[in-house]
């Protein structure tokens, strides 16, 4: 009987993903016995917070383990913390939102933990097999979460659309990886990076890379692979939409950036042209279509498409400035988007989504806290200083200009101007449109309001003191 030689394993590297997976298991098991949604929510919160603290304690560590397929570096930690914090905010939102929806909270929080585990794998993966598995752990969990509100037709439909398009994208991902493997003979990013220069099958490699762009394009909702986004974001439970718009997108970019800048860095001249076009299209189509929306949740879906475009601009620019700007923008984007969806969730109730602009009339005076925070999020999404959105766009466009992508930067700035129209329309509805009479007592939403306030505070803090956060993003990117 021959002995199997296990690879050297650095257990610290897999600590974040291990803890979140265990949390998921614990929640699934507890869900069978504990009937109180609030208790389960608190357990999830504590679990994610403990994981976040443990992850933060890993700062400064750097190792590659499991045969060079899984990295522990500042880049992975930056994204791990982003996912965990986004997860905490989403759980806070869910603790109010799930009431009365009939969504089984043990399963819901368990799948949420698994989804985050998948994202963490994506951020750390230095091997296309591991990227693929992380992506699928995340996607499968989120397909189910999108359809978790089973009595709602639109939740069902969102799950089906998201699943079919996601599985379709997986087909492209797998075929793309196969072509890359054929051309370079490797799945590991470092081996791919060395083989990229002298492969005899350059065209095959380029075709594989193009297919990977399609697959990641679906995940981050870039035009023209965005068709599913509005329907799915609108139909899914609002808390899941927030998770999809923020964490899923960030995870997509985490893997995208690592694979393309690390693995295919030598092909930058080839893929940056394609991404240039996609970035320009994504910004423009997202913003222009958002103008036509009367439903705020749907409008935010288009807005999230547009913001993926800004991040793609940073990716096209590449280099230290572009990469850092991409990470910083994701951080900024996460808080303002989480907050905005939080407000949407706060205004709706079971059976009454209250998502159209008409429903927002007069909200600024009836619900002052929601009015003020929504104003912060909308202005930040537009890019008004001193809020975080301005700093994010500033760094992205500066990076683009520094690398010589003037036209792209101009398109981006023009798009920002367009976007102000639909963001400001929400403010007009909230403050300048006379609203309906007060109908009934407003439900108490302590957790949801906490999540909104946290997002608002972060949006302001990151905007006023961008240097510190920029430094974190730089550490993260340079550790790649």
């Amino acid at each position, binding site marked *: 009987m021959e002995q*199997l*030689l*296990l*690879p050297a*394993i650095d257990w610290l590297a*897999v600590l974040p993903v291990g803890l979140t*997976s265990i949390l*998921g*298991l614990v929640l*699934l098991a507890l869900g069978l016995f504990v009937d109180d949604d609030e208790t389960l929510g608190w357990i999830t919160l504590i679990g994610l917070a403990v994981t976040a603290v443990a992850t933060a304690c890993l700062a400064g560590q750097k190792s590659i383990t*499991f*045969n060079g*397929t*899984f990295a522990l570096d500042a880049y992975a930690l930056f994204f791990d913390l982003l996912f965990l914090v986004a997860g905490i905010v989403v759980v806070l939102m869910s603790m109010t939102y799930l*009431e*009365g*929806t*009939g969504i*089984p909270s043990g*399963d819901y929080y*368990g*799948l949420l933990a*698994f*989804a985050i*585990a*998948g994202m963490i*794998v994506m951020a750390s993966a230095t091997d296309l*097999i*591991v990227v693929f*598995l*992380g992506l*699928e*752990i995340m996607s*499968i*969990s989120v*397909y*189910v979460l999108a*359809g*978790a509100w*089973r*009595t709602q037709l639109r939740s069902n439909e969102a*799950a089906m659309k998201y699943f079919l398009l996601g599985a379709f994208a997986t087909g492209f991902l797998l075929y793309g990886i196969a072509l890359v493997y*054929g051309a370079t003979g490797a799945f590991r990013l470092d081996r791919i990076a060395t083989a990229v220069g002298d492969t*005899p*099958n350059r*065209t*095959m490699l380029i*075709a594989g890379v193009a297919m990977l762009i399609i697959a990641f394009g679906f995940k981050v909702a870039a035009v023209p692979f965005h068709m599913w986004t509005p329907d799915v974001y609108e139909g899914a439970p609002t808390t899941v939409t927030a998770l999809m718009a923020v964490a899923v997108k960030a995870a997509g970019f985490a893997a995208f950036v690592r694979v393309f800048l690390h693995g295919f860095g030598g092909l930058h001249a080839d893929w940056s042209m394609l991404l240039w076009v996609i970035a320009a299209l994504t910004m423009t189509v997202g913003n222009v279509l958002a103008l036509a929306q009367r439903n705020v949740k749907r409008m935010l879906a288009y807005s999230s498409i547009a913001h993926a475009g800004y991040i793609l601009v940073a990716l096209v620019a590449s280099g230290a400035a572009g990469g850092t700007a991409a990470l910083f923008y994701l951080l900024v984007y996460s808080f303002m988007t989480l907050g905005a969806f939080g407000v949407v969730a706060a205004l709706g109730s*079971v059976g009454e989504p209250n998502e159209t602009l008409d429903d927002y009339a007069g909200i600024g005076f009836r619900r002052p806290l929601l009015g003020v925070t929504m104003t912060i999020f909308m202005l930040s999404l537009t890019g008004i200083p001193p809020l975080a959105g301005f700093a994010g766009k500033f760094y992205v466009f500066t990076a683009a200009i520094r690398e010589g992508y003037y036209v792209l930067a101009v398109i981006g700035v023009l798009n920002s101007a367009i976007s102000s129209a639909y963001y400001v329309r929400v403010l007009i509805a909230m403050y300048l449109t006379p609203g309906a009479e007060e109908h009934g007592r407003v439900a108490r939403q302590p957790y949801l309001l906490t999540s909104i306030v946290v997002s608002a505070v972060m949006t302001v803090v990151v905007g006023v003191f961008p240097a510190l956060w920029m430094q974190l993003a730089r550490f993260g990117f340079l550790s790649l």
Partner: protein
Amino acid sequence: MGAALFLLVAALTVVAALGVILHPNPVKSALFLVVTLFLLAAVFVLLEAHMIAALQIIVYAGAIMVLFLFVIMLLNLRNDDPERGRRRYVLRGLAWIGGVALAIELALLVRGASVGSAGSAPAGYGGAAAVARSLYTDFLLPFELTSILLLAAVVGAVVLAQKQRRPTLS
């Protein structure tokens, strides 16, 4: 001998796959897919991937396709008659053009490919022992991740398909 056998199996695979996409009756379409998967298992055997050929038949053709057929019959699906609308035809045309263009493009690209030739594979290549040795050492992490993925899928399927536990509050 090997070459002739491969050509035969490959041709049959394509015919069976055409059956999948052209047959309007979902049950027959699924059965064609089962045939396709069996023939692909034969291709895998010819490529000396014996373990995968076995998995292809046991897991894919056996378990997954049975699930498909089960759901199709449970839902009592009728023919997927494409409506005769113009939009359908346009889409169909686009799909054909896209598919054919992609195939030609990739075929051209594959023609130029120069990957080593198939010498004789090492003894035991593609067998259970070789695959397992690799799976439990070099690919230990992906293997463990698979367990999370499958668990999430199982839980997810139960969440979505079970009877509603608690009614919605009125």
